[in-house]
């Protein structure tokens, strides 16, 4: 009986502890002067991927990135020096590695983010950073912007403009976009007259070699392979992470195998040793190539690098 009383008292004590000195709000300490020119007195108002209207009085000077693509975009538009924190998987450019980390795929530390006093937290939408995370950060008084997950190169270019607006680099971004667009056009021009489009199997995961995963329709891999003058055999399948059976693969018999899982240790030699894979033309003709998957899947400016890399693989004669 007394045990129950103690327990109830404990609950009461805990509830009482929940009323600290009022509700405190985090004061955003903007202590560092901005490196770039400010936009004048007009506030920056944009609508993010979750439909939220985000208003910044001045361009953000202390940015925390919650996704590797966001980090790359920030550096690309010239806002690298305005970053104060990154997620664990942000590994490009090398300068990003010097930034403190605030969590990653298995969870973010709200405390670490708050302690950095950011004036903008850049999240990635489309399921990468959950809406719950955005809500929690909002609850803590932080300004969060969730960048939409693009499905086209134009969408990615829009994100570059958005981030430039948020960080006060609107004047710098046209040059960047022009150069990126020029490189894409260059690839388009060389591809257009070609009549041969090799079939490609792009491997995402082959932990089970008889049922590997390939990039399905709607992915950037799929988009870039087409743009680079190839045919992605995964586009006929369902889902972004599409599972293909070895039998289907043998029937499709792609002209080329591109190993997106090269970072996990897959090599052309290992692939040729897989049981049943030896019959594939691509293996017999040695058309198995590794690639840095980040170039073709991270929705950032390096997608253009990825496009060029794919074009060089698919049409080596045309692209040196």
């Amino acid at each position, binding site marked *: *009986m*007394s*045990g*129950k009383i*103690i*327990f109830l008292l*404990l*609950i009461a004590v*805990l509830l009482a*502890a*929940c009323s*600290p*000195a009022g509700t*405190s*709000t*985090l*004061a955003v*300490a903007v202590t560092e002067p901005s490196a770039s020119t400010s936009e004048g007195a007009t506030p920056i108002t944009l609508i993010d991927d*979750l*439909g*939220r209207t985000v208003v910044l009085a001045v361009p953000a000077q202390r940015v925390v990135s919650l996704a590797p693509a966001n980090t790359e975009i920030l550096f690309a538009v010239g806002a690298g020096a305005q970053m104060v924190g990154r997620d*664990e998987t942000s590994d490009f450019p090398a300068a990003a590695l010097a930034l403190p*980390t*605030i*969590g*990653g*795929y*298995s*969870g*973010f*530390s*709200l*405390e*670490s983010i*708050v*302690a950095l*006093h950011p004036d903008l937290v850049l999240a990635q939408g*489309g*399921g*990468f950073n*959950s*809406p*719950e*995370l*955005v*809500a*929690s*950060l909002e*609850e*803590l008084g932080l300004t969060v912007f969730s960048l939409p997950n693009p499905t086209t190169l134009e969408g990615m270019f829009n994100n570059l403009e958005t981030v430039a607006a948020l960080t006060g680099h609107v004047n710098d971004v046209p040059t960047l976009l022009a150069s990126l667009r020029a490189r894409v056009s260059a690839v388009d021009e060389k591809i257009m007259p070609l009549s041969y489009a090799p079939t490609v199997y792009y491997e995402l995961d082959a932990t089970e070699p008889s049922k590997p995963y390939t990039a399905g329709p709607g992915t950037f891999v799929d988009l870039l392979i087409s743009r680079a003058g190839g045919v992605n055999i995964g586009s006929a399948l369902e*889902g*972004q*992470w599409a599972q293909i059976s070895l039998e289907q693969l043998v029937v499709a018999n792609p002209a080329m195998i591109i190993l997106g899982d090269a970072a996990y240790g897959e090599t052309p030699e290992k692939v040729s040793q897989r049981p049943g894979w030896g019959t594939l033309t691509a293996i017999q003709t040695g058309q198995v190539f590794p690639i840095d998957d980040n170039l073709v899947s991270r929705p950032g400016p390096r997608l253009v690098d990825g496009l060029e890399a794919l074009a060089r693989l698919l049409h080596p004669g045309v692209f040196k």
Partner: protein
Amino acid sequence: MKIRPFLYTLLFLVLVVVLSIAIGSVFIPPADLGRILVGWMKREALSEPLKTFAFILTDIRLPRTVLVLLSGAALGGSGAAYQGLFRNPLADPYLIGVASGAGLGAVLAMSLKWPYSFWGLMAVPAMAFISALLTVFLVYALARVGRTVPTTNLILAGVAFSSFASALTAWMMLHSTGELHRAIAWLIGGASQAGWGPVLTVLPYLALGLGVLVLSGHALNLLQFGDEQAQQMGLPVTRARALILLAASLTTAAAVAFSGIIGFIGLIVPHVMRLWFGADYRRLLPLSIIGGAGALLLADVFARSVMAPQELPVGIVTAIVGAPFFLWVLRRAKNQGYW
């Protein structure tokens, strides 16, 4: 009633609470903690860095601590109740489908991609809660034979429905690859939301459910002798079992709605309490509640500090730490027949 078990368990709880407040990805020196407390008592405004530290304490660490305590209390209490109801040492709060039902509801809400507005975000915990309770009602109705609900039927119906719900959930997850990470993160368990919203939402259900459970100790003692003897000693068996089952399921559903599916606490904490303090349910229930709160909080502290600033999912910590700990306690038990 002996006071010592409660003292020990409460002491453990208090220690863990102190740890939870003191430890996090941001290191707050103990001296600063002291200055913050002094500042609060004097009602003075704090300067940096104390101001940020204080904010972290009140808006991140404290609400999280309380939410985890409540979830652990719910799991410990309903675990003890389930073990008593089913007279089975392997019973845990998820036995008749609360977990799989909640998972189905949560993933369904995520797949429907409701908009960000308030309802959209609360949809996941609300759907998890509702479908967890619906599952229990469904399983109970399926297991009914005439006017009684035999234990074996309950377990079988629960297992069958759980498999069905898990399969549906997996199918939905495969088909909405965009929400896959969010779904997995929720299912694995963990309390990473800021603010007091979740705590306030969950509190009424937990207070009600745990209150009923704490008062059910005598009935559970009677039930250990089987339904017939319990009835012959005066317990209205069917009604009592339904009430306790409802309270335990309500408590679990509320805990799971915000914290996801955290395993091992509901199974192991009651066993440890039983080993150390005896099988009397009038004592075992409140002890399991307090012990569950402390154990889960300890696991949470570990989860957020061992790989800071990354956070391990709490469900993984409870499994990895819980199982060997329980085996150790079991081996050291002097009396083997503690059940």
